[in-house]
């Protein structure tokens, strides 16, 4: 097993036209994403405060906990995570193909459709039109818009890959192309079988669990790993270790990860939770391999790259991916699930996945690529470091107390002598800490949004200046028609 033999050609320098081709679609996608990120954080804060003051905004039906919490979750996932993912995917695929983005107008149209869909969906949840299915709450109008937008971007991305000059695919290609195939499949399944032509009975719950796992863990995992396997070697200045390990991780991840969703205590015939438990234990293999790939790639360069913002974001994102994967494995062990099921441990794992892993990875990627795509530096470059530390602290303060609180809650629910109000009283201190975490995340998100909107403004002003200068240039005599 010899290693460090790179038979790939030497590093290529980027073509500025390639980056510039992505500028407008990325600004459209990321601008909206930053907005929804802040909106989602505010909604999550409102939801969290209600635990400490149940009367807070209680008379407004739009802001009752059961509507505002799903709205916050959906804003984070569909409003920020997925459009950010699509934007980063487009740029990476363009760079790896060494070809400018194909059909950029499709991507811009898709970005606008997507953000409109998120708006329609969030308003739908708040007015009481939620579908009632976890992570699929957007009413029909919103989900149709999202689906159409995704298809447009997928066409643009596939065309870009088709236009590539180098025939061999880099590992990130595999992850990102699989993601382009998987989202329409799971989203269409979820919406058709649960909302459009609903199936009868508890099958709805089985499909909803399958969908949630495949979107939150598998799809975000595919995109996040694809992005991380692109950026970690690039930012560390070392080759990825190794192509075959990355592909092995890919195959085992999609083979086992897709089966992980059914909760152990679900009212379904026992073969379903059993298959999920088996698949989750097998998940240890791809998690281990991803850990090896990540560690062997960046080992030795961590200290020197410590002041590189994107590197820190993506590195901590990978750590959170592995941790959230391990939490998932723990939750599927029947003995552990008896204590952790229906407790805050589950939301802790989801937040670690969504925020600690995926959002952090996206932040790192966006901080690196958007200036190159747009041609201007960040208006507040020092804020990226501040954002990193606030976000990391926020994630820790959000996830760790929720996870511990969940275990405490589970142990108390399991004791029939403890009354329900005593169980919620026992979780309150932990919820207080996680509300503080949410507050920190809100501040971090505002810093991110500030940079994004600032950069958009700088770019628009430059465009305006260019347009004005063209208008003001005196006409050459040859252009004047007598």
């Amino acid at each position, binding site marked *: *097993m*010899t*290693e*460090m*033999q*790179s*038979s*790939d050609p030497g*590093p*290529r*320098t*980027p073509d*500025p036209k390639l*980056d510039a081709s992505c500028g407008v679609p990325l600004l459209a996608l990321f601008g909206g994403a930053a907005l929804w990120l802040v909106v989602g954080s505010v909604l999550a804060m409102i939801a969290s405060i209600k635990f400490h003051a149940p009367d807070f905004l209680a008379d407004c039906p739009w802001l009752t906990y059961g509507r505002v919490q799903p709205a916050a979750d959906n804003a984070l996932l569909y409003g920020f995570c997925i459009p950010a993912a699509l934007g980063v995917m487009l740029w990476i695929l363009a*760079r*790896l193909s*060494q070809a400018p983005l194909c059909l950029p107008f499709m991507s811009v149209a898709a970005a606008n459709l997507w953000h409109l869909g998120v708006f329609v969906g969030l308003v739908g949840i708040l007015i009481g039109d939620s579908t009632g299915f976890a992570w699929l709450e957007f009413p029909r109008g919103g989900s149709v818009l999202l689906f159409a937008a995704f298809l447009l971007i997928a066409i643009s991305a596939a065309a870009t890959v088709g236009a590539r000059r180098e025939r061999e695919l*880099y*590992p990130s290609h595999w992850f990102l192309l699989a993601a382009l195939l998987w989202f329409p499949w799971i989203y269409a399944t979820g919406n058709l079988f649960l909302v459009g032509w609903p199936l009868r009975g508890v099958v709805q719950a089985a499909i909803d669990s399958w969908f949630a796992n495949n979107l939150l863990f598998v799809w975000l995992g595919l995109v996040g790993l694809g992005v991380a*396997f*692109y950026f970690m*070697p*690039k*930012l560390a*200045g070392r*080759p*990825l*270790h*190794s*192509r*075959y*390990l*990355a592909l*092995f991780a890919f195959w*085992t991840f999609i083979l086992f990860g897709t089966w992980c969703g059914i909760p*152990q*205590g679900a*009212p*379904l*015939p*026992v*073969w379903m*939770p*059993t*298959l999920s*438990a*088996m698949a989750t*234990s*097998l998940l*240890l*293999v791809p998690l*281990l*391999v991803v850990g090896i790939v990540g560690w062997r790639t960046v080992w030795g360069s961590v200290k020197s790259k410590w002041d*590189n913002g994107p590197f820190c974001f993506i590195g901590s994102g990978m750590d959170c991916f592995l941790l959230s994967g391990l939490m998932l494995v723990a939750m599927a062990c*029947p003995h552990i699930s008896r204590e952790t099921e229906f407790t805050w441990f589950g939301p802790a794992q989801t937040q670690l996945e969504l925020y600690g892993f995926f959002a952090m990875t996206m932040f790192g990627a966006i901080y690196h690529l958007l*200036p*190159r795509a747009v*041609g*201007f*530096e960040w208006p507040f470059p020092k804020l990226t470091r501040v954002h990193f530390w606030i976000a990391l602290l926020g994630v820790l303060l959000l996830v760790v107390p929720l996870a511990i609180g969940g275990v405490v809650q589970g142990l108390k629910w399991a004791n029939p002598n403890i009354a329900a109000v005593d169980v919620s009283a026992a979780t309150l201190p932990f919820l207080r800490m996680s509300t503080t975490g949410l507050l920190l995340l809100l501040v971090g998100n505002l810093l991110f949004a500030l940079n994004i909107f600032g950069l958009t403004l700088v770019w628009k002003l430059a465009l305006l200046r260019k347009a004005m200068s063209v208008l003001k240039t005196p006409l050459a005599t040859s252009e004047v028609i007598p």
Partner: protein
Amino acid sequence: MNPELQASSQPDAEPTATRATVPMWILVLLLLLLFLGGVYFDHHSGWFDAQVYRPYASAEELDAYQPKSGAAAMLAQGKRTYDMICGVCHGPDGMGKPNQAPPLVGSEWVNTKGFERLVRIPLTGLNGPLQVEGKDWNLSMAAMGAALSDADLANVLTYIRESWGNKAGPVTADDVKAVRAKLSAHPQPLNAEQLKALAE
């Protein structure tokens, strides 16, 4: 492109990958986990049976733990049927309601030695004046038990005869079947005289 970016950017090359092979121990681990998963599946999956839920491990185990209809189960079933159908008029405690239904507690129509009179009452209905525990009643009862199966009606009557201080014996499904066989397809409601003409 922005000159500051050109000047200060890190090397912006595309990443490459080494071609190191997958270590053997990872493959061994994968096979080990697959094997253990298979064993777990064999013990805990019920082999895809639609009716086997956790904690049952197999269809045989589920079948073994089915309660047989013992007396307690029949009484519980009878109580459920009573609450749903009879208790509305005769009261959840069998005390009856004035102008609605006579009491069943201590009633001579309930605590009979045999079953011929009692079984007919819910099967055919009961009209006209009758005396219950010294009080006069003149109401009409529909054939509330005609739609029940033999077993269900037997359970209800057993429940009535063994609750609230009543200490008469049980009524079996065969008793109900025997009485049903003697009735016509659409029997008319009986009255007190017709019932008294029968043996208890």
